[in-house]
């Protein structure tokens, strides 16, 4: 990292303070260049050194340090450094309560050479609280990001609304929400929660495409532990209520969590490289060293002989994609479904797969919603979908039915059916029942559907099927059912899979298909928008 970029660090600022102080004391009018320099210096210092130190003590970096780590060296172009809040109540109008730039740093810069718009909330200024000016700064870069066609990254670290501003602050939130919605599907929006994010503020990250968190130092909740206690009499800590673990493993609000600020920002750089800049751009193709014609002998033995035995679908993904690099999304939530980004011959692809290791890889409410949202992101941003199927069906039971598995399962079905990006499906083992249809089947406009020799496409497992057909009378019919349906032939003879392939050739086949499908053109009938069963 060049030392040039360090120039932006407030602590290392070369501007002399004493000279400015002297001109004030003399009462003489301060020259414009001096005032500019003074404002810039103040803006760079945010809420002042004491607050910066206390931010560091919490194990958090400042808004500016975060931007420096996120963006390429010397690439940050800041906007609105001179914007100040406009509140005149409760003593806010006094000079010492004015901070140039207010409580957010905004601008654009480069990540591995590619353009990104970024805002970074400054906790050292009024706890990063959202004022009208703060919101206006964010809206400005979002508007430009949509016009230019480049992603928006938000680094959230805010105590909430600027209470002194009242409704002005609420209006600010709504302005941002509106833009989040209008940007949705136009440019990727990423939120990285790096401190508190509470109240109405949580809805901005919730509206963006991806929400990442920092372990132990970030929180997301509608109301904090105190309000929870007073309303529902529940005793709960911040961490339990809205920490990274809660949201990545239990609620599914956040997509992934990282160890600390530095880890999170470096991972965000990596993640950014998978994304196209906007819906106008194709999925990016990065230079690739992994040969597209690489055979993967490992795959010929990965599926166990016994169809009841589990294996790790992530192993399959790792061995097929470029350089075993798989950026998993929501790795701790609804683990019976894996989703994430990888590359095939350099091109970004979205990977979905049932995970036989967890709950037999069945589809339930959470995994359906997790999958559906991922499919829709990929479809919106021209990222081809590769689906690995080993699904025994939807999870039965009252918990699921009462929870609305019908409605939620329909989301995944809807998303796959609606998607017009290249869709490649590999059935590794089970593809049973309605879940077979849902998992990017040929019938939902799958472009290329393959079966491995171990594939079993059937209405259900042989045992259950025989019980229903014969009402428990005949027992040796199970073998007949297995022979008839527990193999890829019934699907293959009907053209529901395009080919039965040697597992070791899977990478070669996918790379070749993606090459061809890169020029795929498909559209859905005109509509204002579809009505996905929310």
């Amino acid at each position: 990292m060049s030392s040039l970029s360090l120039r932006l660090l407030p602590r290392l600022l070369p501007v002399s303070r004493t000279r400015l102080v002297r001109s004030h004391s003399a009462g003489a009018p301060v020259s414009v260049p001096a005032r500019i320099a003074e404002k810039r210096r103040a803006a760079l210092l945010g809420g002042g050194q004491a607050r910066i130190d206390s931010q560091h003590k919490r194990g958090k970096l400042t808004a500016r340090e975060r931007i420096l780590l996120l963006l390429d060296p010397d690439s940050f172009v800041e906007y609105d450094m001179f914007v100040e809040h406009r509140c005149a109540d409760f003593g806010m109008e006094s000079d010492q309560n004015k901070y140039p730039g207010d409580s957010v740093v905004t601008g654009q810069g480069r990540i591995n050479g590619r353009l990104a718009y970024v805002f970074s909330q400054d906790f050292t200024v009024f706890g990063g609280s959202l004022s009208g000016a703060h919101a206006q700064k964010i809206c400005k870069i979002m508007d430009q990001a949509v016009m230019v066609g480049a992603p928006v990254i938000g680094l959230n670290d805010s105590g909430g609304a600027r209470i002194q501003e009242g409704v002005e602050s609420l209006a600010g939130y709504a302005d941002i929400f509106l833009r989040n919605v209008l940007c949705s599907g136009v440019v990727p929006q990423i939120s990285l929660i790096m401190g508190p994010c509470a109240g109405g503020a949580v809805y901005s990250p919730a509206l963006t495409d991806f929400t990442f968190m920092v372990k132990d130092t970030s929180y997301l909740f509608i109301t904090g532990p105190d309000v929870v206690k007073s309303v529902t009499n529940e005793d709960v800590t911040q961490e339990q209520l809205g920490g990274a673990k809660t949201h990545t493993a239990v609620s599914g609000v956040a997509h992934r969590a990282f160890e600390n600020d530095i880890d999170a920002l470096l991972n965000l750089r990596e993640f950014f490289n998978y994304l196209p800049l906007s819906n106008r751009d194709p999925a990016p193709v990065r230079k690739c060293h992994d040969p597209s014609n690489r055979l993967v002998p490992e795959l010929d033995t990965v599926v166990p002989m016994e169809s009841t035995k589990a294996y790790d679908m992530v192993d399959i993904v790792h061995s097929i994609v470029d350089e075993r690099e798989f950026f998993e999304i929501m790795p701790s939530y609804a683990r019976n479904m894996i989703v994430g980004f990888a590359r095939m011959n350099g091109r970004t692809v979205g990977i979905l797969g049932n995970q036989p290791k967890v709950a037999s890889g069945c589809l339930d409410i959470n995994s359906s919603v997790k999958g559906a949202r991922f499919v829709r992101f990929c479809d919106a941003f021209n990222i081809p979908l590769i689906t690995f199927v080993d699904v025994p069906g939807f999870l039965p039971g009252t918990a699921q039915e009462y929870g609305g598995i019908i409605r939620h399962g329909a989301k995944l079905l809807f998303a796959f059916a609606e998607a017009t990006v290249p869709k490649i499906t590999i059935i590794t083992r089970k593809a049973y029942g309605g879940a077979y249809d849902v998992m990017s089947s040929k019938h939902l406009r799958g472009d290329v559907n393959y079966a491995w020799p171990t594939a079993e496409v059937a209405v259900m497992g042989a045992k259950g099927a025989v019980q229903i057909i014969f009402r428990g009378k005949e027992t040796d019919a199970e073998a007949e059912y297995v022979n008839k349906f527990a193999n890829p032939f019934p699907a293959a003879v009907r053209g529901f899979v395009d080919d039965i392939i040697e597992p070791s050739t899977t990478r070669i086949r996918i790379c070749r298909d993606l090459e061809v499908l890169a020029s795929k053109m498909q559209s859905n009938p005109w509509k204002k928008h579809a009505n996905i069963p929310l």
Partner: protein
Amino acid sequence: MAASLRQVVAGSWRQPQRYLLALQCATHHTRWCLITSRTFYTAEYDPNEKVTFEKLLIANRGEIASDDKTCKKRAIKTVALCTDLSAGAVHVKMADEAVCVGPAPTSKSYLNMDAIMEAIKKTRAQAVHPGYGFLSENKEFARRLASEGVTFIGPDTHAIQAMGDKIESKLLAKNAKVNTIPGFDGVVKDADEAVRIAREIGYPVMIKASAGGGGKGMRIAWNDEETREGFRFSSQEAASSFGDDRLLIEKFIDNPRHIEIQVLADKHDNALWLNERECSIQRRNQKVVEEAPSTFLDPETRRAMGEQAVALAKAVKYSSAGTVEFLVDTKKSFYFLEMNTRLQVEHPITECITGLDLVQEMIRVAKGYPLRHKQADIPINGWAVECRVYAEDPYKSFGLPSIGRLSQYQEPLHVPNVRVDSGIQEGSDISIYYDPMISKLITYGSDRAEALQRMEEALDNYVIRGVTHNIALLREVIIHPRFVQGDVSTKFLPDVYPDGFKGHKLTDLEKRELLAIATSLYMAEQLRSQQFLGSPRISLAKLDLNNWELSIQLGDGTYPVTVSNNGSTFSVEVDGMKLNVTSEWNLASPLLSVTIDGTQRTIQCLSRDAAGNISIQFLGTVYKLRILTKLAAELSKYMPEKAVEDTTSILRSPMPGVVVAVSVKPADLVSEGQEVCVIEAMKMQNSMIAAKTGKATSKNLRGSWQHAGNPSCNL
């Protein structure tokens, strides 16, 4: 399932497609074997000898069962045995037929004589090659084969019985004027009797199950207390693994070498000694590195040992290949240890230096042909070294088993004069049920230095991912000055690494090289992450790549480096020293050949992540580094320290295995050093000791299966 037989046609009954693959695999392997055979074997086949057996059953698994090159060359059909677990294994794919003999535990499969006999009948195999281990030295098996008219490729029942019985073999050896060690063999009533016997012989003594081959389950006792403990373990192991209660207690020769003589005898009273193998480098009495010949033997000692070995073979009318093991003390006195009436794991190094194909000779002898060689025809040509590559963690007691799936596997066959005998392939599972051996890696050279140099290269070029392996230890051993000088004994490892193996210790220069390589790799990756193909709608900003300042953490040290890029070369300044690192920088390849100021190194990058963590296998050892920009490194001081779990109160299984005995109950008071439970893995019993005094709060049940690191007891 145990007794029920299931005919498996080359792979799977469920998937006809795999059949094709099996054939491709076999063809490929044959081709490779022909290449090695040209390199290693000088003895050619006599075209006048008619096809010997039409079909041969290999009663074994893993690499020995895959090592049926001889059969391929001679067009003998092979039958492999598999279990429910190993049906997709390499040896099964390479064989012409495979028969499933039961579930994974060996006592129900490869040791299940009934199932194997039925497999022989079903496949109409005319002969059985037992490989090593399992039933290879089981006289009952040989007898049953004989009664069915099936040829056992190995010595006859009498010789197996004589040599398999430690008392009888010693008596026979004594009568044949072979030097022997004082000792006792038989049923030992109790610990007291064991102590009495041990005192009679004089400490130190060695205790093991009489029926156990090699060093399995062998324990050394220096005093009465250790004798009692050894008695307990060995008698338990004797009963559970072999169903034979007899124990062997004998004088333990301190600081000895383990040198063995390969013999080959026919049914016409001819016997040869094929020189020695030095197998002194051992851990827990199991061989790790072997070489032939030994640096220690002079021609006279060699001849004396060879002649005694042949005398013993003749005394039992031995036929087939066998090995006479000796302990050799520092004064070159040698003592007969035992005779293995089978092919040894390390037989390839003898094949290398003598040019004989031992498997072929065994088949010839079994069919009744006389030996074709005279003693004077047996040469020592060059030098051969064998390293046993195990799936185990060498940092724990020089190797505790690890399990897993081989996610990537690439043998160093591109290095000249390298032979790899393995029974696994990419995707294979290493399970707790069998020996954790991945392969035996053999290199050959015109002299020892060349063989060792090639071994170093071969180890660096060996890609094994998904399981922990012992390459680091192997590489350290073969470059250790004591080993290079030939100054070894069976206590080499504990002598050289008294505090356990800690990996390679980097010299200052090596450390700089490692830092420079890591930096360059990081930079290559950074550069690559900006290389997008196609024409972007918004143009890419170019980065200045000169004089990047980075900070690298390695161990406890943090090292500032600056780096500049010029094509495929990175100039890295570390500690005021400039190093130029050149490579292809192929980030997908598991092996990376780099040149640092003219020195070529092969490294493996095992993992790297966005947060700057990178692990590199350099000089055999894996180093974990963290590379950050100078800015990120400066800011990382603000990052909170994460709390680390206190592990002393949790007893974790050091390896995957089965809990066979639990000595405490919940709520028991446990004192530091007390045995809590015994975990059996890879046929070894391991006592689990409490790390601190406390009250046992929970435990996993006896008979349960433990992953490495699973807590088996909380204190």
